[in-house]
């Protein structure tokens, strides 16, 4: 038995990267046909002959072994460091210091958020979160740059449309599920300061609901709600509101001025000062971006 497993492992390692290009096999049961000049070269010649350079070929042979060794070395080094850390789950570990105590003990009074995590990310450490929504915005812009097709996506291949018009089972399921998903997303956004959730989770759920709707019914009905213009203006408005509001509260905080926002009664839906509007803005950004990603990948425009 042992003799059999050993070559199997080495075989596995050798094909670890070389064999993983059966993209066609994964989704297309037909045997791969040479498609272009490049494909012809890549597939008709023996696997590594195209790499004429002997050095490259030698390097390729040791590639998987190199990978295995690197992983093993990395695991050893990191483990040696991790085993020296304070034990996991103990109450006296360094992270559980005065910072955490104030977040929990005074978070409710200072931010008005029942969910302390929301209070931390949207009030105590709001600058990080401001950066984070801009990460999403940057990525959305970069994807737009990459995938926006020159024709504006009007030459959609018919295959896309065919797949988009989902079958009756999908449509009828979507008819029931989509409203629930959207409602749940809105609930998670609005409830962010009271319970688990918040703008990011809720926005992602909303985005998922919109994507499901589009998969079932196609882009045309969605166009009435979210056109390219609505998408761009929505994101810009939400980001400007977010930056402006946070800049105002940073400025007031640094200069020891009172803001006009009140914390209200803890636990009420209209409470926690800026956290609720910020959650809505973040939710809007996330939902639009997620839908935008899908739309860009699917048809090259929004």
């Amino acid at each position, binding site marked *: 038995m042992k003799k059999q497993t050993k070559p199997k492992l080495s075989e596995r390692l050798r094909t670890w990267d070389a064999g993983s290009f059966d*993209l066609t096999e994964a989704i297309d049961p037909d045997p791969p*046909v040479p498609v272009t000049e490049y494909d012809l070269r890549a597939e008709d010649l023996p696997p590594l002959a195209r790499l004429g350079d002997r050095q490259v070929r030698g390097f390729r042979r040791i590639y998987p072994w190199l990978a295995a060794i690197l992983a093993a070395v990395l695991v050893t080094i990191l483990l040696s460091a991790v085993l020296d850390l304070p034990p996991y789950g103990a109450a006296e570990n360094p992270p559980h210091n005065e910072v955490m105590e104030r977040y929990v003990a005074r978070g409710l009074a200072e931010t008005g958020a029942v969910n302390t995590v929301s209070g931390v990310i949207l009030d105590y450490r709001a600058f990080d979160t401001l950066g984070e929504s801009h990460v999403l915005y940057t990525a959305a812009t970069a994807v737009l740059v990459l995938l926006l097709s020159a024709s504006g996506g009007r030459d959609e291949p018919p295959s896309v449309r065919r797949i988009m018009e989902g079958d009756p089972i999908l449509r009828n399921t979507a008819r029931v599920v989509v409203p629930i998903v959207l409602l749940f997303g809105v609930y*998670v956004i609005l409830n962010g300061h009271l319970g688990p959730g918040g703008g990011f989770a809720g926005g992602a759920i909303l985005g998922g609901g919109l994507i499901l709707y589009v998969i079932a019914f196609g882009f045309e009905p969605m166009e009435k709600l979210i056109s390219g213009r609505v998408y761009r203006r929505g994101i810009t408005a939400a980001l400007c509101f977010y930056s402006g509001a946070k800049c105002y509260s940073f400025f007031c905080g640094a200069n020891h001025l009172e803001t006009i926002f009140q914390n209200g009664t803890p636990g009420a839906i209209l409470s926690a000062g800026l956290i609720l509007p910020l959650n809505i803005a973040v939710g809007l950004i996330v939902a639009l971006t997620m839908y935008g990603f899908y739309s860009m990948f699917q048809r090259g425009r929004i």
Partner: protein
Amino acid sequence: MTGLDVFQLLLLGGIVVCGIAACLSRNLLVCLIIFMAYSVMMSVIWVLLQAPDLAITEAAVGAGISSILLFITLKKLRDIRKKVLDEKTDETEAL
């Protein structure tokens, strides 16, 4: 060792196995499905670590949006391949 500990240990073993399997699997579709399972298990671990916010976000973002994007990319790649293939057959027929 309580029952929850055992459950957590099983999940931890599960994500490690899934992580390695996703990297080693040769079929890309299988690889993506394993990755989805990995994300779902990760969000359950986060529930056990008393971080429900993260669990919701990971379930929606990691297992939801990321996976949808990966699948749509795979589909897009197949479309590109099909388009090129059709053009090629058209050319040979014209000849």
